């Protein structure tokens, strides 16, 4: 009868049970002590933050991201590779746990349960080994630049592979000796066992080998456990922890608010101690996979920013200075230690970020890069450490409510040729309040599209109005630059005007305004907010918007970061494109993978600096590779300016043209 035998093949008078338990217990104690030494730095150095609410949702997070590992699976090769390794180990761990229960509590690993148990373990061994081979190939042959190609990763891979191979060897040796009738339920082990059988070694020899490899496997496992916090396998603990503590109190489009001390003083991040424990945990959770780096437009452009290196700098600083900071009772003088913001992490790096959120979206362990970058920007803004172009833009925003330095009375200049005159939403009740946005209002070359939008809305018979001079920059990018005070001021002014106006829904043509109005304007939440693509989609569905012709263009669509990735609006614009009779060929990087144009996060207000290739240019190159695509459709005014420029600078004027979604709609009406 098939059943599991504890410590098969090990002489019982050696007390294998004592050896195993004491060794593993010792290893576990060492692990716990070292975990505490490293992990306690998070809360001893960092500020507090409430991240243990909604436990049931957090457990869901662990299951989704740490066990099933959906994010890891989003890329095929490394996905399969890592699942092989990780799920392999989950199963092995479960196997050991079940064996322990079987050994000490309920004997159930006998008969069919036992056979299934063995089978699953063997299959996952194979799966694991496949993963290990894929990993080896990736690390030594492929060598993608996003990985950290250092020996400590090799050591980990070798360690766990050897452990598993040793385990397989132990099993195969037993099978070679036992040769049970149900050997085929351990197909892999049985296969390997053939080698031993064929070798002709005597049963005693095999038994000796068995003991040897078993001991080797045990010691190696103990070592791996004990050294876990110092090896790259540290992420197996910190990763899941990070997913458990990931943020779920606010929508992803809402930036982390400024932290406050107990005395309600704002905390601007310049050193490790200004970060919260969760932000420090982010540093330790990083698996150095580099997916964030690959997705980052700033990195691709050749700026010094790499989201991966950014997070690793925090880890580096924490490991180096954390123990000193935690040991001292008073807040240590920053002079002796390298300052986090400015020294450890150069300012240029922090200013290079476009806040597109691709890094956050890609990270398998849910690290929140953008929030921390903005936290550090807040400090630099207070200290006045920004380039003069940005200073000018902020001064203009503060004074005139727009970054162009033009009078607020010029905001509605673009409406002059529109007849009938667009309603003033501040004075008349309207159904839709159209929040136009700075670029669409003030930028002379965009005026045409803004006017077209107004015309289309009028043709459709929509009851809408604008806020004329009452509108101010919505503040999305002001906030992401780190000027929280200015954001509050702008938001206050906008909310004051909005609260006095009578309307049902807010519509906007600008995804940045959309994001902040929807997610960050508190107290305004009663009004639904629609991006104009959502509005058009609704109108098409309801039949209010009918097209008289089918355009038949072959187009591609660029998902704006703040519309798509941040707010999940992907299908509405696509439906509208389809309704105009255009054929949509998807960009290789589309939807949540859309590649940022480079203007966000205040970058459009900063000096460009030395760059390799503008993100917008890279995107155009991506688009022209799509055969037959003549039109690059966008749904954001900043995208229009960025891509028009990019088409010129890449010399593709004859090949492709940028059109706003509204231009297609207007043509097809």
């Amino acid at each position, binding site marked *: 009868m098939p059943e599991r035998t504890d410590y098969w093949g090990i002489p019982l008078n050696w007390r294998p049970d004592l050896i195993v338990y004491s060794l593993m217990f010792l290893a576990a104690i060492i692990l716990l002590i070292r975990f505490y030494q490293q992990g306690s730095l998070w809360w001893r150095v960092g500020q507090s933050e409430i991240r243990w609410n909604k436990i049931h949702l957090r457990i869901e997070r662990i299951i989704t991201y740490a066990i099933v590992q959906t994010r890891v699976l989003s890329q095929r090769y490394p996905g399969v590779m890592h699942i092989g390794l990780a799920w392999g180990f989950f199963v092995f761990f479960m196997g050991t746990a079940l064996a322990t229960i079987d050994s000490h509590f309920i004997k159930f690993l006998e008969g069919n349960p036992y056979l299934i148990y063995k089978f699953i373990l063997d299959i996952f061994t194979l799966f694991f080994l496949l993963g290990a081979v894929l990993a080896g190939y990736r690390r030594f042959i492929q060598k993608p630049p996003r990985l950290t190609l250092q020996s400590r990763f090799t050591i980990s891979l070798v360690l766990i592979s050897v452990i598993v191979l040793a385990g397989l060897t132990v099993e195969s040796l037993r099978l070679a000796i036992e040769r049970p009738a149900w050997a085929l339920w351990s197909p892999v082990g049985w296969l390997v066992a053939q080698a031993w059988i064929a070798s002709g070694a005597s049963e005693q020899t095999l038994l000796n080998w068995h003991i040897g490899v078993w001991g080797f496997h045990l010691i190696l496992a103990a070592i791996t456990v004990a050294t876990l916090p110092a090896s790259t396998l540290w992420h197996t603990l910190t990763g899941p922890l990070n997913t458990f503590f990931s943020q779920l109190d606010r929508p992803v489009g809402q930036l982390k608010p400024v932290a406050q001390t107990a005395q309600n003083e704002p905390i601007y991040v310049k050193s490790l101690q200004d970060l919260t424990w969760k932000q420090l945990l982010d540093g330790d959770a990083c698996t150095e996979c580099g997916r964030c780096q690959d997705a980052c437009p700033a990195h691709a452009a050749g700026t010094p920013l790499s989201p991966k290196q950014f997070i690793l700098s925090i880890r580096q600083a924490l490991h180096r200075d954390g123990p000193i900071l935690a040991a001292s009772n008073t807040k240590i003088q920053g002079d002796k230690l390298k300052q986090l913001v400015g020294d450890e992490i150069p300012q240029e790096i922090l200013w290079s970020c476009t806040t597109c959120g691709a890094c956050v979206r890609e990270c398998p362990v849910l690290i929140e890069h953008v929030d921390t970058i903005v936290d550090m920007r807040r400090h630099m803004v207070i200290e*006045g450490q920004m380039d003069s172009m940005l*200073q*000018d833009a902020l001064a203009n925003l503060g004074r005139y409510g727009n970054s162009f330095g033009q*009078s607020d009375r010029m905001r509605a200049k673009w409406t002059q040729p529109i007849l009938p005159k667009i309603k003033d939403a501040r004075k008349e009740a309207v159904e839709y309040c159209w929040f136009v946005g700075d670029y669409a209002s003030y930028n002379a070359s965009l005026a045409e599209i803004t006017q077209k939008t107004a015309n289309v809305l009028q043709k459709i018979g929509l009851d809408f109005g604008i806020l004329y001079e009452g509108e101010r920059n919505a503040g999305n990018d002001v906030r992401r630059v780190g000027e929280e005070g200015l954001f509050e001021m702008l938001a206050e002014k906008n909310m004051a005007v909005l609260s006095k106006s009578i309307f049902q829904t807010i519509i906007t043509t600008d995804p940045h305004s959309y994001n902040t109005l929807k997610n960050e304007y508190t107290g305004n939440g009663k009004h639904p907010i629609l991006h104009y693509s959502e509005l058009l989609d609704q109108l098409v569905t309801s039949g209010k918007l009918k097209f008289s012709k089918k355009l038949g263009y072959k187009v591609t669509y660029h998902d704006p970061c703040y519309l798509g990735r941040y707010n999940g609006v992907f299908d509405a614009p696509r439906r509208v494109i389809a309704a105009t009779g255009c054929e949509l060929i998807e960009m290789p990087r589309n939807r949540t993978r859309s590649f940022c144009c480079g203007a966000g996060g205040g970058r459009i207000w900063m000096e460009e600096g030395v760059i390799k290739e503008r993100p917008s240019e890279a995107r155009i190159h991506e688009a022209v590779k799509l055969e037959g695509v003549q039109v690059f459709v966008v749904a954001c005014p900043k995208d229009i300016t960025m891509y028009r420029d990019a088409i010129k600078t890449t010399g593709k004027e004859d090949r492709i043209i940028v059109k706003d979604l509204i231009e297609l709609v207007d043509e097809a009406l």
Partner: protein
Amino acid sequence: MNIIVPVKLVPDLVEELSIDASGTALDTAWLRMIINEFDDHAIEQAILLKERTGAHVTVLSTNVEGVDDLLFTAAAKGADRLIKLNGDFESGINNHTLARAMATILRDLKPDLVLTGVQANNDLDGSIGPQLAEYLGMPYIGYVSGVTVSGETVIVRKEYPGGLIVEMEASTPVLLGIQAAEQPPRYVAISKVRQMMKTMSIEELDLSTLDSTGAPVVNRMFQPEATGRATMLPENADNAANQLVTIFKELGVL
């Protein structure tokens, strides 16, 4: 070192300006005021000197609408003391009046160095610096674009046309008319200004009777008629470019 920076608000030229009903002054209904650009440079220069030498900086201005924001912003940049001067400014105030009245106050403050903008866009009776200097008995150097302090000596770079600079020096106390600070006026975060509003206070001092002798009487103000007006080319970039090319050819430069 004790540095005082008198500043004022002037019409913001970004906005449209119009004349009021009396025809002798600007219409204040639509008027937006902004810190005199050169006074802003003076504040910046003062703060730079403070950063270099640990000087004490006082910023003062007349108590008109918008002065609080003006002074707290200066504090956020680093000004140590804020003063607003009370008086009857309903119908505006000219530099002759202000210089006389301010001199009494400034004398009591015992400055080593007074920095003020070399001019302002609404000056009609000269700029305030030289007049203030005379009442205070201090030497005056204007059009200064660089200041170094060495003990009790102030060394300045004064601008002449054509990019020529002359270096002059004087012992404190001295009054300088600032053309440009060594770097453009820095930006301060709004939260910092708001913080100043909570932590700093503005002192108020009264100006003695205002005597406007020496300032001109305005008969009328008007907007200039353009003696000529440019022939406007199309707003469309490509069309405008076309026409410009034709013009260049006509002029013989192309």
